[in-house]
């Protein structure tokens, strides 16, 4: 019953995106176009990142944590942030409120990320007879990633789209954004240097995503108050 397992893992990986879209007011305001545009921007960003990684990074045979390589990877990771900025600020969207804009952009971004990174391994691996927990864990990771992306989009919209912010909150906003943006480096550090196994890493990601979501939610509400 391995197609069954594939189906299970697929709904774990991609279900939350669909649920998020239909449950929140996003579906009422028909923001699908925004999400699709965000997905396309993600694709372009991924291509640019690929080229940069291929040019600047050296492939090491062993799984050794090289700080310079990791720093380089983190810097290239900031291209992600640039892409997100482009999607949020530069693209023209229909008249949708800022509240919904960052959600739609974050959703499209996270969906494209899941599809690109997780669909192929899922299709090839989860259909086999052999059972592993890997694909379920991968689905959980996709969930955490969705929360991260939406939080990052929220913080991004706060940083770039909102002009009047309380001065005290600005450093907090920036630190949170930096933490979320460097999440991949943090997880690879945990996996290689600390030797954490995949389940532990995924658990850490889920917890951090919830914490970050809560913090960014609070920040968003706090920033919204003066304009009200």
């Amino acid at each position, binding site marked *: 019953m391995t197609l069954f397992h594939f189906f299970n893992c697929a709904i774990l990986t991609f279900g939350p995106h669909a649920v998020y879209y239909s449950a929140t007011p996003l579906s009422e305001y028909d923001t699908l176009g925004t999400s699709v545009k965000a997905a396309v921007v993600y694709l372009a960003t991924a291509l640019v990142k690929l080229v940069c990684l291929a040019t600047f990074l050296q492939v090491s045979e062993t799984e050794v944590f090289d700080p310079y390589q990791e720093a380089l990877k983190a810097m290239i990771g900031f291209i992600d942030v640039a892409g997100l900025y482009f999607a949020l600020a530069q693209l023209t969207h229909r008249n949708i409120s800022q509240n919904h804009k960052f959600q739609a952009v974050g959703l499209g971004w996270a969906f494209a990320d899941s599809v690109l990174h997780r669909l192929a391994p899922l299709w090839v691996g989860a259909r086999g*007879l052999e*059972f592993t927990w890997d694909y379920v864990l991968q689905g959980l990771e996709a969930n955490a990633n969705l929360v991260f992306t939406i939080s990052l989009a929220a913080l991004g919209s706060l940083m770039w789209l909102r002009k009047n912010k309380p001065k005290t909150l600005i450093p907090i906003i920036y630190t949170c954004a930096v933490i979320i943006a460097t999440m991949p480096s943090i997880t690879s550090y945990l996996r290689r240097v600390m030797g954490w196994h995949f389940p532990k890493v995924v658990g850490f990601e889920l917890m951090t995503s919830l914490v970050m979501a809560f913090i960014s939610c609070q920040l968003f509400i706090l920033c919204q108050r003066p304009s009200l």
Partner: protein
Amino acid sequence: MAEEKNSKQRHHRSMFLESMYPVVALMLVLVACVELCDAATVVDVYRLIQYDISGAPFGSRFSSLNHHAASLSFQHGADLSRSVLILPLRELDIAFVQDYISQKQSLGGLLILLPQTFRPGNIGGGETQGLRILLAQLEKLLLHGNIPFPVYFAFENEETDTMLADVKKNDALGQQATATTGGYKLVISVSEPRKIASPTITNIQGWLPGSRADGDSNQLSTIAVVASYDTFGAAPALSVGSDSNGSGVVALLEVARLFSTLYSNPKTRGRYNLLFALTSGGPYNYEGTQKWLKSLDQRMRESIDYAICLNSVGSWDNELLVHVSKPPENAYIKQIFEGFSNVAEDLGFQVSLKHKKINISNSRVAWEHEQFSRLRVTAATVSELLTPPELLESAGSLSDTRQHVNEDSIIKGVKLVAESLARHIYGHQGKDIQIFADNSSLAVNRFYVKSWLDGLSQTPRVAPFLSKNEPLIMALKKELEDYTAEVSIQQESLDGIFTFYDSTKASLNIYQVASVTFDLLLLLVLGSYLIMLFSFLVITTRGLDDLISIFRRPPSRKMKIA
């Protein structure tokens, strides 16, 4: 206006989707072609031989396998017809296997795990005498039974050990591994075995001519040294037959080497021709030897004074036996035996003569020399075996590995045969001369013996599965070419009562599978998670009323219409 725009948009969208259909279809086709198999563990397995004798089936009749694994700790009365029973040799219960086969109970398959010491090429290993006896018994049982399920042999390694431990634990808890309870699944996907159309047996002969004195018009006499090189065992891919008859082949090659050194110098060339033959078809009533003899020129056959056949000379200590079919009182036999016993006395061991009459009406040929005797050629077999082996026994079983063959025994055997032949050829019978003395230029080469023995102990040699240009046959031919003047190969087809089936080696994929109940449970959990997520999001973004209104929409609409 808005409606027109909407319909146009819809039209564009449908056209776009339609144009996507062929692309989507192509992608689906491409993607479906991706291979599904990606097992965590792949093990080499070797199938039990499948053969017919005059149409009567023997051995394992099936080859492909796709069942769950079970171990001996299963509950009594459990149905194993869709399971593969994993039996490690160390815990084998012969009576149990015998019951299963004789009562014709259905079993999905049998996987026998052998310790690594039985692997060809594995020199090390502890004391395995008890295991060897058990293995021999098991082999006999499997070879002579008609088994309606696949039987495979594999060597123990870490992965099989962990799998077996897991399976035992599950079985002890009473959870029979089926499609709904998970466990391990063993898959061997090979095609059904087919008959081997016309198996060939290849005989290799080398001819070393003697020197004729000037003016001597008589044909020189010939002495033949013969050994059969092929094997037969329960697992044809593992039948290396170190003792039966790898030791005989090595002894023959060494004797050929020694005499080729002697004969290379015209001054020391004897007045006898030497004929060395490596025959095939040994386990099948020495069919190859018979065909080879019949193919010989009649004059050549009549010129053979006597033939020495070598069969299993690798693991004896003090006594070697000379088996004959002519009565011991026969002058030739007496002469041959005296020659042997004189040399044996000098070398410090014993030879005994054993006589077994040939029963012409019985088609069973127990020793190779009997084929010679049936064609009126004097012959004897030098062997360590006391009794003649049964049909298809002592021909290279799984327990016949390199560790239990002693080079010293082979060297003693070589010395015996070479010295007695040389004393006969050069007329030094009864004299106290050692022609092939140690530390001389004609000494028996220990390294030669060891290297050929090692090589043969890693080469399975079941005749029907050897191709016409098998590397082994080419190597033996080349070796004889180095030592003799003329080498010829005779290839015949193995007809008669034996039929063989292919598919001797396969790869076993071991999958750890989850049960259907697990998948259903996971689906339930995921479904409830998504529903919870949905409700949570609706509540937080739109409020609790909206959530309730989603479930109450139909009635409210009806009320509105009304």
